């Protein structure tokens, strides 16, 4: 492994950011750049994945991520099938492994899997002989989200190294937070997490981040402020007492943002809870909010991931 241009992506699956090298990440981001340009043209379609079958297998509801993968697969010329498994077989008692075997028998080339339980995508990946992309597993990882966030930042700031990134909100239950922490620390950014103590997982500093419990110090001097969605089921009672209190202390508004660098940029993985974790005036600030760029980058990043995992399939013997 030397420089990114000569670097091959030596992983069969994309299950997480943890374990990827800086070269792996740079390769994916560089490839994504090309797709950003392609996606802005009138003719967006390529035939790189012609004949390949890509299955979106979502055990948890999602519109945005599933659509983004679907668009990515189709623009590369692949056949994309959407399966909403949450509604069908699991309720009948079929196990995850049974589902994996069933899907595997249809000879997909790539499975894109989202599941509400941490580790479920790893388990499924052990049972199939195609590439698997983790589209979010429980509170564990959501690698394509971190890649699209990194691409968004890199295009604006020209680099990731040395930037101060504050990730704010429900760190405990967030797969977006974990993937971003791994990616940004791997690429040399300084990562902070900012949240009330009930939403910070134990020993998270061992992942290479600094922990803050108030926005003023957590955001001080930050280049990037990344807000996380607060899941509605955690808003009342045991994690935070009320939306009002949460927004007062941890919601991003102009006043709290003032602690960050004057040109600090704002990100959010969506969908946003306006007035819970982010104020509309900040979210819609065209100069500073990158939220719509993130969605655009999502398609490009997913095209890059599909390319590196799927383009060379079928040249060797099937993996048992």
């Amino acid at each position, binding site marked *: 492994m030397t420089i990114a241009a000569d670097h091959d992506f030596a992983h069969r699956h994309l299950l997480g950011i*943890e374990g990827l090298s800086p070269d792996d990440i740079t390769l994916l981001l560089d490839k994504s750049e090309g797709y950003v340009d392609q996606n802005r043209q009138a003719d967006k379609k390529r035939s790189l994945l012609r004949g390949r079958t890509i299955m979106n297998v979502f055990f948890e509801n999602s519109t945005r991520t599933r659509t983004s993968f679907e668009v990515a697969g189709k623009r590369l010329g692949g056949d994309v099938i959407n399966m909403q498994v949450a509604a069908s077989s699991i309720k009948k008692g079929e*196990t*995850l492994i049974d589902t994996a075997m069933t899907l595997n028998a249809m000879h997909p080339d790539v499975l894109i899997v989202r599941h509400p*339980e*941490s580790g479920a995508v790893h388990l499924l990946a052990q049972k199939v002989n195609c590439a698997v992309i983790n589209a979010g597993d429980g509170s564990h990882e959501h690698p394509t989200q971190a890649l699209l966030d990194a691409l968004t930042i890199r295009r604006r700031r020209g680099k990731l190294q040395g930037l101060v990134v504050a990730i704010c909100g429900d760190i405990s239950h967030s797969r977006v937070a974990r993937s971003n922490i791994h990616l940004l620390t791997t690429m040399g950014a300084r990562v902070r997490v900012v949240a009330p103590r009930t939403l910070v997982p*134990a020993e*998270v500093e*061992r*992942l290479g981040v600094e922990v803050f419990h108030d926005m003023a110090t957590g955001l001080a001097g930050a280049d990037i402020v990344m807000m996380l969605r607060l899941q509605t089921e955690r808003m009342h009672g045991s994690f935070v007492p009320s939306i009002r209190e949460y927004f007062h202390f941890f919601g991003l508004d102009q006043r709290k943002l003032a602690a960050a660098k004057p040109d600090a940029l704002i990100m959010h993985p969506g969908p946003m809870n306006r007035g819970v974790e982010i104020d509309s005036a900040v979210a819609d600030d065209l100069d500073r909010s990158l939220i719509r760029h993130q969605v655009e980058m999502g398609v490009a990043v997913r095209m890059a991931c599909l390319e590196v995992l799927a383009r060379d399939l079928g040249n060797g013997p099937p993996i048992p």
Partner: protein
Amino acid sequence: MTARTLFRNARLLDPATGRDGKGSLLVSEGRIAELGSDTIASGKDVRVIDCHGHCLAPGLVDMRVELREPGREHEETMETGSAAAAAGGVTTMVALPNTEPAIDDVALVEFVARRSREINGVNIRTYAAATRGFKGKEITEIGLLSSAGALAFTDATAAIADALVMRRALAYARTFDALLIQHPEEPSLASDGDMTEGETATRLGLSGITPAAEVMMIERDLRLVEITGARYHVAHVSTSEAIEAIRRAKARGLAVTCDTAPAYFALNETSVGEYRTFAKLSPPLRSEFDRREVVAGLKDGTIDAIASDHSPHPQDSKRLPFHSAEAGIIGLETLLPLALELVHNRHLTLLQALRALSLRPAEILRLPSGRLVEGAPADLVLFDLDRPSKIAVDTFRSKSKNSPFDGRPVQGRVLKTMVEGRMVFEAEG
């Protein structure tokens, strides 16, 4: 079957008297008739076994197993459990009452006794539920269940969470001098948790259980033991704080005992690795620091006993995402070799290990076994202390194969197991 068996040329090991030396042992009428130097005469109708200098010790008394009968016989039956126990050198095992239905009624205690007689393998005894249906609300008929043969009272894998119910259970149990066994985990802190809280859980995105949940439940119970004067036993202790609390309680003279299971001195939380469900246990595997403290607790005797915590689950219950997978591992056939690791690593003497495996559990449960003395039941294990091998789960007699120890190199192999003078296991070759 010959009524008499003579073990010759054995290394006799008795944790009760501290005996460790060469000698012979004569079994007659299901009891140890004579033991001593190699001059015991054989005679007619005596099966003579040359032990080639291997260890002859009291059979293991495994004070914590789940047998799944009645109710979930596809996971384990008393018969397969008995065969596994015999192969593991266990001569008495005590079943947790968490079957379906729960053993919370005299008829079910009698059912276990009857099945044990029918199977005629190792001794199978049982605990009874401390509260009806393990609901933690109404105490069971502790007096009648004791008379029927229940050795102690426990809600198995559930903690008795309500302090008032626990106080009454302890006070009432004392009336009959019965023993209460607690699964030590404050349930509200442990609820929905997948593994020990910390870096590994955080990396894997799994919900963590604070190790403090263990000591909190124990310290509460110790106050109640102080009030009631009851006999109290803590199952599978796994944290340094819990062991320290029990150490202090013993120093104060409370009637407190505890056990641990091999997983808690042989593994730590890193065994979970990439979501290995065979490393999902309850209580969960702990930090390396806690693992070392479990070893220290065994060494200084704070931890009285080592139990297998045998918990059979079929493949289907383990081949699931980590959170959905069942907790627990089998242990009957790995109990002795894993405990002997502590001997080979010089943490325990051989007699200390045997004391924790046979004598202490027998004493806690007031059983006559666990001793190599004349008149004691001829419950014996003959084992080769040094023979190296790899744990091979597919050779196990247990119906379920959920063990994280498959492939682990160990030293020590059971050669023969005898229960009340009956040979219930003989190794091939």
